[in-house]
């Protein structure tokens, strides 16, 4: 082959791969094209392509050409195995001694299949290894700079497309999750109103009769105690249903310029008793330079009360809860943290704590955090949780500073 026809050949192959990348939305098709064309242009026996599974942090086989089905089922390998030396991230690795190379897992098998040389081509984005193409050859040979250039360029393009498609896929998953969540919420709202009515009616019967009867029993009789419990528990059901309706109703926040420290103080005033009763310590570290921002005071107070009560209930007697507030001028937001040194939240639960009806408390409705989440989102804020089981739980709420004539200090100054 003359050098010009060789060049033409590379060019065609490269063009085909690029076309596959642009016309196809499935990574699989692109990867199959890449292994097939690489094998073809390098006159190899076949090729195998692995991609990093970010969840397991292992490289899994995603495409094979010329090597038979068996290769598709090869097990995943770790980064250490593939690339012990990060300096070689953008270089082709030659394996000429199939028997003794550490990178070759089954030398006997490879030898029996007639493989005498392998090339490993890393797929990398900047300093991250995201995959690897292994090319199998039946005869050891030297590679020209052009060939290496070609294969590295293909690898580079391939890495870009994988990264892009993975990004699209993860966004799609996230969007699907959100859509299901929204669907769940809106049907939940309709259901909540229905449930409220259906349950409040029988509760009304129970409460009217039991409260009426409690006045007719002789004082001190066992019936009196039973009726007291029935009345109390029925009223508890009423509270639960009110919470449910509250949650289901999509309330728009009524925002006014407000001082978040003052809201926190007011929430602390309400739960103070609970702290005292349980001998739980409370530390305040509220920012002295707090700025006002647009907030629905009642809703934010509700969030604080929810989080403070959760914290109090999470710590044993003599535990400690810290509330902090700060201004992050750089990000134009204020931040509130409520930290306790209580029982912590298990990793499995953390993912679900903001979902409605999810509760780890025996008497919880599973709505407190779901309501809080909704309120913070309606303020264009975010709420995050960090927890170490048995040690610490910290809820962090970030809220944007919305100036609109409520600034008491220059918000637009540069930090």
């Amino acid at each position: 082959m003359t050098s010009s026809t060789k060049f033409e050949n590379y060019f065609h192959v490269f063009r085909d791969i690029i076309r596959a990348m642009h016309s196809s939305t499935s990574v699989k098709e692109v990867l199959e094209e890449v292994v097939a064309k690489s094998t073809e242009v390098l006159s190899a026996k076949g090729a195998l392509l692995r991609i990093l599974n970010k969840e397991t942090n292992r490289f899994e086989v995603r495409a094979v050409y010329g090597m038979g089905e068996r290769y598709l089922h090869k097990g995943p390998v770790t980064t250490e195995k593939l690339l012990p030396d990060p300096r070689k991230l953008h270089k082709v690795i030659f394996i000429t001694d199939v028997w003794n190379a550490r990178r070759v897992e089954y030398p006997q098998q490879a030898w029996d299949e007639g493989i005498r040389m392998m090339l490993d081509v890393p797929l990398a984005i900047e300093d991250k290894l995201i995959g690897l193409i292994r090319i199998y050859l039946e005869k050891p040979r030297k590679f020209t700079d052009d060939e290496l250039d070609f294969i590295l360029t293909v690898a580079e393009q391939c890495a870009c497309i994988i990264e892009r498609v993975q990004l699209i896929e993860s966004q799609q998953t996230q969007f699907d999750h959100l859509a299901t969540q929204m669907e769940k919420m809106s049907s939940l709202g309709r259901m909540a109103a229905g449930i409220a009515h259906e349950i409040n009616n029988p509760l009304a019967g129970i409460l009217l009769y039991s409260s009426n009867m409690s006045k007719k029993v002789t004082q001190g009789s066992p019936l009196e105690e039973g009726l007291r419990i029935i009345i109390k528990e029925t009223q508890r059901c009423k509270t639960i249903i009110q919470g449910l309706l509250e949650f289901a109703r999509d309330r728009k926040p009524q925002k006014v310029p407000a001082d978040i420290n003052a809201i926190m103080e007011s929430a602390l005033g309400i739960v103070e008793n609970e702290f005292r009763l349980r001998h739980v310590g409370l530390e305040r570290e509220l920012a002295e330079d707090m700025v006002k921002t647009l907030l629905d005071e009642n809703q934010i107070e509700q969030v604080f009360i929810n989080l403070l009560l959760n914290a109090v209930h999470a710590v044993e007697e003599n535990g400690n809860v810290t509330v902090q507030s700060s201004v992050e001028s750089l990000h134009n937001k204020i931040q509130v943290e409520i930290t306790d040194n209580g029982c912590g939240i298990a990793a499995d639960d953390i993912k679900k704590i903001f979902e409605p009806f999810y509760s780890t408390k025996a008497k919880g409705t599973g709505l407190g955090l779901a309501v809080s989440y909704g309120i913070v989102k309606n303020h264009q804020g975010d709420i995050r949780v960090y927890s170490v089981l048995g040690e610490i739980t910290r809820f962090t709420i970030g809220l944007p500073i919305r100036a609109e004539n409520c600034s008491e200090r220059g918000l637009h100054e540069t930090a």
Partner: protein
Amino acid sequence: MKPRRILVIDDESVICDACCLVLSEKGHSVDHCLTGNAGLLAIEGGTYNLILLDVKLPDVDGMEILKSVREKGPVPVVIVMTGYSTMSNALQAMKLGAADYLAKPFTDDELVEAVEKLFAYDDDSRYG
């Protein structure tokens, strides 16, 4: 407190019976209807001082009954009862002329208190 003539309109017979029991023990004379239409007929033919009205009825919207009662005059007064314990429901009922609002479930005391509050003025000695 002077005995009153009270009509309970609710499609749940348990609630009707419970309200009748509680209020008749306080000396009031209480009737009840299980549908909106029966309620409208009873209002037409009766001389009630007070109607305890459920807003969700199988045949007629409770709010419609409230409206028609109010259009005819200030008597009888209406206390609205509803299982949708939300503020907007209460507000809507008050706007349409309900004298008070009871969110289900409620205790006998809450019921009696709501009724007595309405007639406190009339019973006040200054007004004879």
